[in-house]
């Protein structure tokens, strides 16, 4: 059973002051749970190691996909293939951050990789800021968390310039390149996630600006412009596959811009490989039976309870849980049915006394750097709650 500690929730006024305005879900229930998951130091350590190990495996498997021309197999849209390759092969395209979704890690259950949100991870604000605020609100000054998300992101921002582990030479090497931060207009969670990242980049020492995607001008030969100012660095919290499928002209322009070395884009296009559920099958091929992995296949698994998920699905949509004989147990409808499916061995998530399930979100910015949980039913969706943690 998951061990929980009750806490006083944060009042909405304070949350909004913090910039966290998506505190209430579409069914009017609070998005933030009024409990913390209790995690032992040993469990936290195991999460830390698991994230680092998994990332090394992702890099190995990424090299394999590129070398063996498997981008089509894992569902990378054809109009991003050149950009994915270029970003992989040129070291300036540094991965800023991602979030592993993991089963287990607490309650005696082994850690298993469910997927890697490598391209556009949210829950950043909750993990980096809000769960510290919960400790503060509850006077838990001496309580601890596995949560260096803010500090590690700040360091990794500096690495975009130093391109090595050490960030000491950032100020020496940074030549004032302007950094533009972008979301799609109309969603405040995405916008404030981006503004938080911008804030951290500011603190790291960059010259930054924010603009909605529709305000930005793209020129294949000259680069990225906002209000006539050229930006050499661009962060976009917009999924690469959306760019490929909904705005193919933009995909073409960004490819030109990157090939012409006019801008560097974060997260890099190769993170779309990591993000594809199809990549999980490649991982299983390369590391069959690895303790951190679940069996994964492009075909239904024989005689095993399994989860069927589209290569590029979001918020649990178009996900189904199947019996070994193919019978559908749970099924969330969605708009992602058109993507090819991955079949992944089912694993039970840790539960609390009320039977609610907990899935760990482990942030990664050059190394594992922070932990948070989502709580929901069989399939996590956009009504799942965020649950903070405390190390005991």
């Amino acid at each position, binding site marked *: 059973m998951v061990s929980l500690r009750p806490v006083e929730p944060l009042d909405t006024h304070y949350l909004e*002051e*913090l*910039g966290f305005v*998506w505190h209430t*879900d*579409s069914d009017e229930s609070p*998005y933030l749970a009024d409990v913390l998951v209790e995690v032992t*130091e040993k469990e*936290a350590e195991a999460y830390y190691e698991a994230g680092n190990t998994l990332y090394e495996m992702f890099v190995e498997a990424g090299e394999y996909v590129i070398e063996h021309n498997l981008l089509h197999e894992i569902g990378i849209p054809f109009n991003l293939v050149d950009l994915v390759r270029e970003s992989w092969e040129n070291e300036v395209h540094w991965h800023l951050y991602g979030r592993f979704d993991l089963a287990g890690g607490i309650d005696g259950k082994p850690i298993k990789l469910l997927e890697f*949100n490598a391209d*556009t991870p*949210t*829950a950043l604000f909750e993990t*980096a*800021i809000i769960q*510290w605020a919960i*400790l*503060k609100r509850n006077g838990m*000054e*001496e*309580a*601890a*968390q*596995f949560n*260096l998300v*803010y*500090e590690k992101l700040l360091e990794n921002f500096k690495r975009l310039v130093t391109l090595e582990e050490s960030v000491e030479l950032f100020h020496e090497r940074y030549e004032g390149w302007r950094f533009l931060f972008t979301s*799609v207009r*109309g*969603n405040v*969670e*995405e*916008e*404030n996630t981006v*503004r*938080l990242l911008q*804030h951290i980049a500011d*603190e790291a020492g960059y010259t930054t600006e924010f603009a909605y*995607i*529709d*305000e930005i*001008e*793209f*020129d*294949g030969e*000259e680069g990225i*412009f906002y*209000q*006539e100012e050229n930006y050499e660095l661009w962060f976009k919290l*917009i*999924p690469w596959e*959306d760019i490929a499928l909904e*705005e193919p002209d933009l995909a073409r*322009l960004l490819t030109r811009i990157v090939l012409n070395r006019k801008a560097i884009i974060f997260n890099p296009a190769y993170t779309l490989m990591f993000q594809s559920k199809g990549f999980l099958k490649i991982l299983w091929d390369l590391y069959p039976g690895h303790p951190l992995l679940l069996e994964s296949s492009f075909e239904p698994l024989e005689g095993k309870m399994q989860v069927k998920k589209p290569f590029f699905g*979001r918020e*649990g949509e178009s996900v189904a849980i199947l019996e070994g004989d193919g019978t559908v147990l749970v099924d969330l409808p969605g708009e992602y049915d058109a993507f090819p499916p991955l079949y992944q061995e089912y694993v039970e998530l840790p539960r609390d006394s009320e039977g609610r399930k907990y899935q760990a979100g482990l942030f990664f910015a050059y190394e594992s*750097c922070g932990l948070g949980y989502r709580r929901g039913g069989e399939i*996590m969706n*956009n009504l799942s709650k965020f649950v903070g943690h405390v*190390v005991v």
Partner: protein
Amino acid sequence: MKYIKRLSQISTGVGVGALLAVGLSGCQQKPADQAAAVQPQQKNAFVVIEEVTPGKYKIAEEFPAKETRIILKKLDGTEKVLTKAEMDELIKKEAAKIEQGTSPLTSPEGAQMTSGGMSIGQAILASAAGAILGSWIGSKLFNNPNYRNARRAGYKSPSAYNRSVNSFKKGARGSSSRARSTRRSGFFGGGSRSMGMGRSRFGG
């Protein structure tokens, strides 16, 4: 373990500590909820102002452009490009009237008074060029609802106004002014699929 930290170890003045104290919007110059307020367009404009009756002018066309230019089309068919000095002088005069509250641009009756045409100075200020050249007038104009009504009335036809607004919104480069430009913008102009205060549809 070095990756586990106590709340008491977080310093108050910087990083997470600063955010916990004042919040993200407190750290920013422009809070998110004000971002949508009416603001002067920062781009340059190419504007055609046409004389409709003797001494009365309307905005016939305007496009985003690399530099701000105003073309004056007189009733007799002649065209004239206004110099920077001429533009500045006209704006200065009109700005003085705004200051004194006597300009039709910012008075409640402005929309009626300007519906038959404006002086050249008013037309410039009502155009996108005014937004750029007269940016020092700033909030006096842009947050004045009368100005917005008068501005709309100052166009030769409703379609000229709409075309102008749309071309600036999209930042699309007008074909007449930047025919050779390859810049594109307006991507994802329909906004987010999960609008408003709700949660993001991706990332999880």
